[in-house]
């Protein structure tokens, strides 16, 4: 209730909560004179913060910087806080999706929707969409692919493990349909929320 925008993205066993504070006045050290600054904070349940969390923070921040219209709020800071409530595979994708919806919920100007899916490349060459953590562990390579909504342009791809160039391109194509599904789901959720507001006021 304190955040200006919030969203929870749940998929199978993974749930990530995102809260957005801002745009609000930034500290002198942080603020930029012509655009807003986005900071991302990933909270682990136990309060510690390692290199994995730092890496995820940077990835989410880069994606948000690509979709948020930063010239709309100069001298402001948009603080995104992520918390992985439960993790069982695909937490980075869930976090990206939660962060984007939370930013939209906060009313920040956004160029367009985007969504992330996790793609696992197994040893036998098959491609698995949205793998569980067990499947991620036994995969040859795991990719988190973020695509832009209206034209499926590639915004970000994070690869771990061993993935060939052709396989990467195939995986990005396979992610296209899954991204459309996620975006339809996001649209339904937002429409439902707006419809409820209209009924009450």
């Amino acid at each position, binding site marked *: 209730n304190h955040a*200006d*925008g919030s969203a929870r993205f749940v998929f199978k066993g993974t749930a990530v909560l995102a809260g957005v504070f*801002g*745009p*609000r*006045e930034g500290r002198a050290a942080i603020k930029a*004179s012509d655009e807003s600054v986005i900071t991302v904070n990933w909270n682990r349940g136990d309060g510690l913060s390692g290199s994995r969390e730092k890496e995820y923070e940077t990835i989410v921040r880069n994606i948000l910087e690509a979709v948020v*219209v930063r010239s*709309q*709020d*100069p*001298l*402001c800071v948009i603080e995104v806080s992520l918390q992985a409530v439960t993790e069982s595979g695909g937490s980075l994708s869930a976090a990206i999706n939660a962060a984007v919806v939370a930013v*939209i*919920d*906060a*009313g920040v*100007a*956004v*160029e*367009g*929707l985007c969504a992330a899916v996790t793609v696992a490349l197994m040893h036998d060459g098959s491609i698995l969409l949205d793998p569980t953590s067990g499947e991620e562990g036994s995969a040859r390579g795991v990719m988190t692919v973020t695509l*832009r*909504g*209206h034209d499926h342009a590639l915004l970000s791809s994070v690869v771990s493990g061993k993935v060939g160039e052709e396989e990467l391109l195939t995986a990005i194509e396979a992610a296209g349909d899954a991204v459309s599904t996620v975006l339809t789901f*996001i*649209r339904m959720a*937002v*429409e439902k929320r*707006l*419809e409820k*507001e*209209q*009924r*009450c*006021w």
Partner: protein
Amino acid sequence: NCHGMAGDREEVDEVDEMCVEGEVASERQDAVMAFEKPPALSGKAAGSDWEEGKTVLPGDRELISKLTAPFAEGGTPVLQVGVGLSQQDSHLVVHRAGTLRIIVKSATSKAGSNIRIWIEASGRRYYPCMQDIVIGVVTGKGGDDFRLNIRGPSVGILPALSFEGATKRSRPKLEIGSLVFCRVLHAYRDAEPELTCISLTHKKGWMTGSAMFGELQGGFMFEISIGYAHSLLHPDSHIISCLGRQMAFEIAVGTNGRVWVKAENVEKTVLAVNAIRNAEHLERGQAEAMVEALTKFSRNK
């Protein structure tokens, strides 16, 4: 010297403001009328599904030519693009999730149709806009101005003499934490908004109790979402009429999502605050039942 110059500027501003206020008043009337009866867009262009009341999400786009095509008779239609939308080449692109609002003024002999299109969205962060009436909380005092928190991206500046009939010797002394009911004079994206407690129409001095703007004393202030605040400002607000049937109270609603309520005693004030807070999430029938239940509970104690 400073005061002389400031005085001149105030005069010029005032003339501009009166024109603007007149325009804004008629716009508000239009907006209120549109609110009650959304205009039917007759003859939607084939393929354009952007109509009044549609839920849109960021990234949704439509060709400008498709939007203006139904109104092309009588001259080139003018499309005025408001909050939440921007033009990219030949498309209008949505930047905020919300409800699409369209108001059309039909073509006259002199000009083509005028189409106004914007996104109505609720939220918790307030973006200051000229002529908005807001409730601010004093967070700091400078030499000759007050700094107010108005729930926006930056603090608002209220000059110490911007009160009706205030002079250097007699002006209100506001403490940190005071509530001020004021008007946004200037709102810029890159600078702090300037506020004022001078009204263009009500000329009662700040020292009398009946000035239009100024400090709100007593009562209780709480925060709600921006969209709900707009609906409370509507003359036929359901919850306010419901509550008004049960008790007498004084209420001030700021466009920045703040509400101040003052009733006879603490108990009635708390009742009113709870009723208004709860009604944000209840449908109309439920809201009435809730108000009755609260009043009955307080009477039976």
